[in-house]
């Protein structure tokens, strides 16, 4: 990773790695902390599970340093399900990422939900064979992560709150910034690249395609079928649900309902049908009540 500074990094994410994210589109990726939860998630129709030690709501409540999960726990989850298994590494913690790759996870999430290991650099994701998903709150951040080798983007939201307002803000910001970029005359894209702090060629590619070159899911605060459907209507390719499922009254029923609402996101009658009888949603915290230093979405640079 840091051994030979003269060797250029290999190319950005491969087509099979960005392609795996394409296979997950229209689906729900669920946070799980053990094999039993992973089975519940798969049985509800999750397209992948995210293995972590504590869900974000517990990380928030309990405090302390949050790190990569125990390898035994990750192995247990890999053995429990047939769908892809993702696992989180700390921002910049390239050895946690090496360990996760050695464990054979299908995707690594370089995640602001864990305590950052590096406040300047993210992981050089191009030097790995396993694909990465990274969080972003705006287009420039997304493009910097893609440049580093991310094969999938996850708008951050505010994890562990059950408050969808930050997820809303981030996906609206990214889609608006793409639309603005696409409307610029070609000779203004040089300054746009400077302002986005992203490579010119990638900025041109996004301006032409009117979309990111990788799949973008939404995360952080999704707790109900209507939350998930709203993110899809706003242009998300899929959703991550963290604490929203296993911190609710009936995780299996809620997980299944969120999966169906994500498919039928444009059908309010269907969303109404699956929203009935789900029991208590996670209690949640309003993002405005979270002091700024404790907001996870502000981690990442």
């Amino acid at each position, binding site marked *: 990773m840091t051994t030979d500074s003269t060797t250029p990094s290999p190319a950005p994410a491969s*087509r*099979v790695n960005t*392609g795996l994210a*394409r296979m*997950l*589109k*229209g*689906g729900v990726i669920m946070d799980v902390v053990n094999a039993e939860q992973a089975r519940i998630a798969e049985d509800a129709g999750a*397209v992948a599970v995210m293995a972590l030690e504590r869900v974000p709501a517990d990380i928030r409540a309990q405090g302390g340093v949050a790190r990569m999960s125990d390898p035994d726990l990750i192995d247990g989850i890999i053995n429990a399900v047939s*769908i892809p298994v993702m696992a989180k590494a700390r921002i910049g913690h390239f050895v946690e990422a090496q360990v996760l790759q050695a464990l054979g996870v299908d995707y690594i999430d370089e995640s602001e939900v864990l305590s950052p290991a590096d406040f300047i650099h993210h992981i050089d994701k191009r030097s790995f064979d396993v694909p990465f998903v990274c969080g972003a709150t705006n287009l420039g951040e997304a493009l910097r992560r893609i440049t580093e080798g991310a094969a999938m983007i996850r708008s951050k939201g505010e994890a562990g709150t059950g408050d969808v307002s930050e997820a809303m803000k981030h996906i609206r910001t990214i889609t608006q910034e793409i639309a603005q970029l696409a409307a610029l005359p070609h000779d203004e894209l040089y300054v746009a690249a400077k302002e986005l702090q992203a490579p010119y060629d990638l900025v041109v590619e996004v301006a032409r395609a009117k979309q990111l070159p990788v799949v973008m899911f939404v995360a952080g605060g999704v707790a109900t079928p209507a939350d998930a459907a709203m993110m899809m209507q706003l242009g998300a390719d899929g959703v991550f649900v963290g604490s929203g499922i296993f911190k609710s009254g009936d995780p299996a029923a809620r997980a299944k309902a969120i999966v169906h609402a994500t498919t039928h996101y444009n059908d309010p009658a269907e969303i109404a049908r699956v929203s009935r009888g789900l029991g208590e949603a996670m209690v949640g915290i309003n993002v405005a009540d979270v002091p700024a230093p404790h907001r996870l979405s502000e981690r990442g640079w």
Partner: protein
Amino acid sequence: MTIRRTIGVLALQGAVSEHASILTDLGAHVILVRRTEHLNGLDGLVIPGGESTAIARIAAPLGLFPAVRNLVSGGLPVFGTCAGLILLAHTVEDADALAGFDRIATLDITAQRNAYGNQLASREAPVDFMPTPTVQPVAAFIRAPHISSVGPRAKVIATADGVPVAVQQDNQLAATFHPEITGESAFHHYFLSLV
């Protein structure tokens, strides 16, 4: 003058827009299929890659697979890639996560899910495709299934390193790989020739 064909893409989950884009480029009119009524008037149907466990669960309450099975038995051309092959296969090995869920199961093969292991085993590879003997299209194998046996009604139409990777049974076509990820149109072109 050719008649513009209407091709459905099963749009419950997975790489839907990638198939829609290739089919549109080849001149087809594409319908996204989320309910049985969307199957009316189709000239062909594509079942995209995705997670077969998720697609089977989303499809179950909609009654989609019994309707697709009837249409395929009646001759509707169908093309399944990766998860689509799993849903079309008559038999799936190691199918615990699919147990109790309906599949289309009209294609005379036995398939094994995630046969090559985790994502680190995913790769691109050239494919020997019998309808185009002079060119080898490149396809993406992503957590790909394996065709473990081919019944008498189906025939192998593509191999990679000698291993069967695509089969045809009359109006049914299925591949373990993703031509839509490499932007490879040879397979869709062939599928449209069956329509």
